[in-house]
């Protein structure tokens, strides 16, 4: 009984380590076979359409609403201290530093990451990947690498659009609806937001998230058991794992980036 439990634990650990190793080798292989993604750039553009352009609606709409909620809640709290003018700082800094990259990445993981996993998982289940190999076409170079680079390139744009839309939402609620002074809203924001410290770090964050999400999504799809159940399980794992990875990476990156500020 006890022996069985220990055996189970050992087996799971070995499986886990094996999977991490496989994922690392998969990631390396993707990087090494990226040549095609750039030589035949049309492939990457096609994937950018599916993971970037089609995610635009959800990113823009949620950015707008997140910004509007920040405007309302921030005003409620700041009003207690009589510093409503700092609303611009609050909205801009929280969006540019944290919410923009993180929420955009979470949405990207559930919108585009799950689609990538399902697509590749199904390609595997219907033996399209094996067929490619039979025709001496490398599936990593032809299928995986373009999707990887498309995700990595799309992610910072999506995060920037999310932040910009959120700041616009905060402006709508704060200035147009509640009536915070427009001049101090923008000027306080401009004096508090630093290009390198805040905006550039946000962009770096979103690039890292893009790498993490697409790698996890591609690996889960590539590794999925070739059954209907296997593909559905892999899709679920993609969303769960990449969301957790985004949040954990965000903590690590924030700890490195914003340690020295004030």
């Amino acid at each position: 009984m006890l022996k069985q439990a220990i055996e189970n634990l050992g087996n799971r650990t070995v499986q886990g380590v094996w999977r991490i190793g496989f994922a690392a080798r998969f990631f390396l292989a993707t990087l090494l076979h990226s040549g095609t993604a750039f030589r035949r750039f049309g492939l990457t553009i096609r994937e950018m359409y599916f993971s970037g352009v089609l995610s635009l609606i959800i990113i823009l709409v949620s950015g707008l609403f997140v910004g509007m909620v920040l405007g309302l809640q921030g005003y409620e709290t700041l009003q207690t201290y009589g510093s409503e003018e700092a609303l611009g700082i609050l909205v801009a800094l929280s969006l540019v530093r944290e919410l923009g990259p993180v929420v955009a990445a979470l949405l990207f993981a559930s919108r585009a990451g799950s689609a990538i996993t399902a697509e590749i998982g199904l390609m595997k289940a219907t033996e399209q990947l094996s067929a490619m190999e039979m025709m001496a076409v490398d599936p990593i170079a032809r299928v995986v690498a373009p999707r990887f680079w498309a995700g990595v390139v799309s992610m910072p744009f999506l995060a920037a659009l999310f932040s910009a839309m959120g700041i616009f939402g905060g402006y709508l609620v704060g200035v147009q609806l509640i009536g915070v002074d427009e001049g101090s809203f923008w000027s306080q924001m401009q004096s508090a937001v630093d290009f390198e410290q805040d905006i550039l770090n946000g962009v770096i964050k979103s690039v890292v998230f893009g790498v993490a999400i697409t790698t996890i999504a591609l690996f889960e799809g590539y590794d999925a058991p070739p059954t209907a159940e296997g593909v559905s399980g892999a899709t679920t794992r993609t969303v769960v794992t990449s969301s957790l990875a985004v949040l954990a990476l965000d903590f690590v990156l924030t700890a490195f980036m914003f340690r020295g500020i004030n």
Partner: protein
Amino acid sequence: MNRTVLDLWVGLFVIAGIAALLFLALKVGSMSAVNSSDSYEVVARFDNIGGLKPRAPVKSAGVVVGRVADIRFDNETYEAAVTLRLDKRYAFPKDTTAAIMTSGLLGEQYIGLEAGGDSVKLKDKDRILITQDAVVLENLIGQFLYGKAQEGAPQ
């Protein structure tokens, strides 16, 4: 889907993304107005800088003329050496005074410059000689209490 339509959409997406980044950089972040190219640095020494931080504004007559570039501790004189990066457009006389002030009661601290009457202007790497330290609230309260105690003491 048609190849050109696809290219068009992705192109629009990239343009929108770059526009958003530019919006963040210019409208939200105001790519710092004072660059290192059109600025000069002067050093001011203080016994106590209070809560002054790097990137705090340097103001003269209430107008921002530069930023605090660097704050370090001088282990020989036991003073704080504050490097101010001032905009080249503004030149100050050599006998300008620098004081550490607080905006509002609880606001951030900044450096206020008050121009003197010297005809020679401050140059790069010059030193501001006359400085006024930050007001430390604890010292102020201590002095006040000490004064009160003196008043109440029997003659």
